[in-house]
């Protein structure tokens, strides 16, 4: 019987070694209820008591051997099948695709939001106001009475004699001071209108951001400090600012504010026209007449205000040479910057 077992073992191993061996058939042939090994075991009764455990053990070993072999074969067949499947599923990773469509924020909004976030971080609130505005808020309350020559510098669109399209965001200073009492820290972004024909650097409609701080003990140094912080956040930590005396009817003293060129850092380049500086802001200490007109006592309170043009920053930031692109809304342009 031992020979028979040896033979079964060898035969099974040989069969299992064949390519495309039918594992289930082999299992049935040798290990099934009527299988060859089972047949051998059935004949065990004829053996002597001494032989029986020896052959039994041997038969179990053969069974385990074949079972193992079948499992191994199964596993390797499965992994071969998997490998084949994976191979079949191979894709060309260099195939081109379109990115998932996500919209692009308009560059003006993008920069406006960036500016807003900087000032929110400095404790400013955002206020909004009407674009179709009273002459009073746009001019008179800002210390620009009728027939004041300063009105010439901003050619204004009129609706009626005393209603106009605001030529600056400054009317919001007045509205804010009328509505709230100090301490005040507000910014007011929005559209403004001036009678400038459209060209590469002018538009009858553009965007400004106005800032106003009123409290006890506000100094011109505070104005400088605030704008310096802003400039560093907006244009980088190395940015410097420069104040030049100027005149605005609603601030006294007034200043024009330059930032060091964010391309060349002040050495002079084509962006800053060799100056090293770029004019970006108008600012000053709120004029006592303006405070008084809003019921705020200039003997007790002081404040500063500043304003900047958003288009100018957008154009510098993205190196845009024609303002009209911003209002044309060609999606090829928008997608480049979004």
């Amino acid at each position, binding site marked *: 019987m031992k020979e028979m077992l040896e033979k079964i073992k060898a035969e099974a191993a040989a069969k299992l070694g064949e390519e495309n061996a039918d594992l289930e058939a082999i299992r049935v042939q040798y290990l099934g209820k009527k299988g060859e090994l089972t047949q051998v075991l059935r004949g065990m009764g004829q053996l002597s008591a001494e032989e029986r455990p020896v052959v039994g053990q041997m038969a179990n070993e053969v069974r385990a051997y074949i079972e193992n072999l079948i499992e191994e074969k199964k596993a390797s067949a499965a992994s071969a099948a998997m490998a084949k499947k994976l191979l079949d599923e191979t894709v060309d990773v260099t195939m081109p695709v379109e990115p998932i469509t996500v919209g692009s*924020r308009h560059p003006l909004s993008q920069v406006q939001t960036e500016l807003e976030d900087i000032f*929110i971080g400095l404790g400013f609130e*955002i206020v909004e106001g009407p674009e179709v505005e009273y002459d009073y808020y746009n001019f008179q309350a800002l210390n620009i009475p009728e027939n004041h*020559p300063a009105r010439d510098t901003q050619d204004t669109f009129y609706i009626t004699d005393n209603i106009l399209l605001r030529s600056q965001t400054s009317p919001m200073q007045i509205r804010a001071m009328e509505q709230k009492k100090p301490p005040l820290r507000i910014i007011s972004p929005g559209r403004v209108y001036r009678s400038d024909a459209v060209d590469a650097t002018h538009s009858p409609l553009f965007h400004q951001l106005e800032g106003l701080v009123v409290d006890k003990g506000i*100094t*011109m140094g505070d104005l400088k400090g605030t704008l310096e912080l802003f400039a560093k956040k907006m244009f980088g930590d190395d940015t410097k600012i420069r104040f030049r*005396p100027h*005149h605005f009817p609603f601030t006294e003293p*007034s200043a024009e504010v330059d930032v060091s060129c964010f391309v060349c850092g002040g050495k002079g380049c084509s962006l800053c026209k060799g100056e090293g500086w770029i004019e970006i802001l108008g600012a000053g200490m709120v004029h006592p007449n303006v405070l008084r007109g809003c019921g705020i006592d200039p003997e007790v309170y002081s404040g500063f205000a500043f304003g900047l043009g958003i288009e100018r920053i957008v154009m510098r930031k993205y190196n845009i040479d024609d303002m009209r692109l911003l209002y044309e809304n060609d999606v090829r342009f928008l997608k480049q910057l979004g």
Partner: protein
Amino acid sequence: MNLSRNWLADFVDVSDIENKAYCDRMTDTGSKVEGFEVLAEDIENVVVGRILAIAKHENSDHLQICSVDVGEDAPVQIVTGAQNIFEGAVIPVAKAYSKLPGGVTIKPGKLRGVESNGMLCSIGELGLTTHDMPTAIEDGIFIMDASLEEKIGTDIREVLMLSDSVVEFEITPNRPDCLSVIGLARETAASFDRALNIPTPKVTEVGGDIADYLKVKIDAPELCPRYTARVVKNVKIEPSPLWMRMRLRAAGVRPINNIVDITNYVMLEYGQPMHAFDYACIDGSAITVRTAAEGENFKSLDDKDHVLDTGMLVIADDKKAVALAGVMGGANSEITENTKTVVFESANFYGASIRITSRKLGMRTESSGRFEKGLDRENTFAALERACELVNLLGAGEVVSGIVDVYPGKKDATVIKLEPERINKFLGINASEQFMRDTLKKLDFTLDGDMVTVPSFREDVEGMQDLAEEVVRIYGYNEIESTGISGNMTQGQRSVSQNFEVGLHKLLLGIGLDEICTFSFISPKYYDKICLPADSAKRNSIVIKNPLGEDTSVMRTTALPSIMEVLARNANFSNEKVGLYEIATTYTPTDTEGGKLPDERKVLTLGFYGRGDFFTLKQMCETVAKYARVKVEYVRDSENPSYHPGRCANILLADGTRLGTMGQIHPAAAANYDMDMPVFVAEIDIPTLFANRGAEPEYKHLPKFPASSRDFSFVCDEALEVGAIEKVMYHSGVKLLEDVKLVDIYRGVQVGEGKKSVTFRIILRSADRTLTVEEADKAAKKILGNMERQLGITIRQ
């Protein structure tokens, strides 16, 4: 204001300071410099010469060979084509290797075989005109005064006084005093801490009495606070001297004749516009400063006719206006070469009135530009004296004794208390009181103890803040130390509605739409393009009185045309699959004539072509509604003229409030934009969306028990909207009903013409148990019963 540095040197010595350093410091102290120009910089190696001999050129019938003395050992030979030369003529000579304006270099060469070592110059070649050099001719060599013979060999720039530097200032409207050489000299002296020397003009009179010539009456003292005048007789009109012409030229003013040049010279030097008129042209001997009669005619000295009104101020004799006060003189009293007696006027006029007049008549002059800013009343006298001093100096005439000075509007000087501590605190600096006092003195403020008297030419200075500015601009703006705002803390934040918009932007970008930015003003024709009927209320727009053009003449009441323009433009650029949005403002008039501002409302417009259909648009609207946590309904609107009558819906809130409109743009409207593809747009009112937004969500337990579902198919008329069926299901009073889903719509022969089969799945669930079959069936039956009762439709067999 163009400042000649030669002229400046009359009053303050800053000759040691280079142009660049001068300009930088002046800008830093508040007189903004636009740039500077070194005059005659491009002229080099051009000298005074004298023609010694002229010989004919053998190979030319128009060229001549000159032997020219240029102050060197030997004469130079120069070939010229000019015909106005003669032996002994003193002329400008551009020597070999010299430079002339316009980048011209003169090199030695041969002209038809004859050596020529330079060029004889015309005034044009030196960059001059006959206004600058009245004795010269345009077309020929500049024959100079024979007396210059002794200057042979001298640099032409020196001889013609061409060398100067001109600094261009941008003077702000609050500082009309700086529209003058003296004003800028004062700023210069303070900026560089130099001595300022303004001589008092001295006039030599010849006797007589001005009273015999002229009486002046001011009828409108509020418009003419001061009128000062002098008379000059035996006037000899001729060109003014070279030095004066060259200074005027540097300042950008064209020389005319001695009398006119004097008025311009004084205006530039003192900042006080002057007027000179011919005494012979005055009817009677009285001058009246009065307002014009309504419709009065006036011809200005540039020969233009004007019709005046009663708001305008004129200088008149007994019969007629001889000048439009502060703006321009009249043609009827203009200085001519025959003028013998001149009246010099130096007056002060009310700025706002001059401004109105010059704007109304469209006449902006050097004079009106200064007057309208409000000039110094005290300055008229000194300016008049200076003019007459120049008359003496130039020998232009004889000054009659006496001055007319009518001064009804004398003002008290402004006096302000000097509060050094307060100024330092306001500015955030630490300047000494002495520095403040010194600075103010340099700027011609007078100090008496703590009281500061403001000079009459500084009407802009009214209080502490103004004094602070004077101090700090000399102290240096850039010396102010940056500080953080101290005091009360404030919360930096966006408002709830602003945050709502920020979120909305993110959402819209997330669903793949690009943001656009469009103009708020449109053409009224845009309403035609979106097919608004002629009587549509939406056409009632805020109209701009002075628009740039029709395209930007009214404020939009709807943002639909704006997004349509952009969609069309992109289609025109062949951009495919375009989806856009804008949170745009619209402007609806309330009562403009009654002085009310319009209703400014933000509206979300979103639109696309080439990337979906009506239902894509509806998905986008649903996404927006979900963002705001509002439940909306879509109700067909076949009346909206801008939209496809079968593919347009109003978006309504549960209470019927209209939130917006969405749909396919009417093909007729699309065609107005040259678009033949389907275009889809939604307009959603932002304030309504925001006001009706749902509350912050709250967690509800996730279902613990499974749902049961039942599918039903109904056959119904095509016209029955699925929304109606859904609504009946939801309102069947079945508490277990969790959701209704449209599964399928089938149209075909089996269901018949004009019919459709719709399949719904209802989802039933209880929060506390698994539903039994009986419970689910009972609920379904109830729903079906409702369907039959309310809609007359039954389950498809």
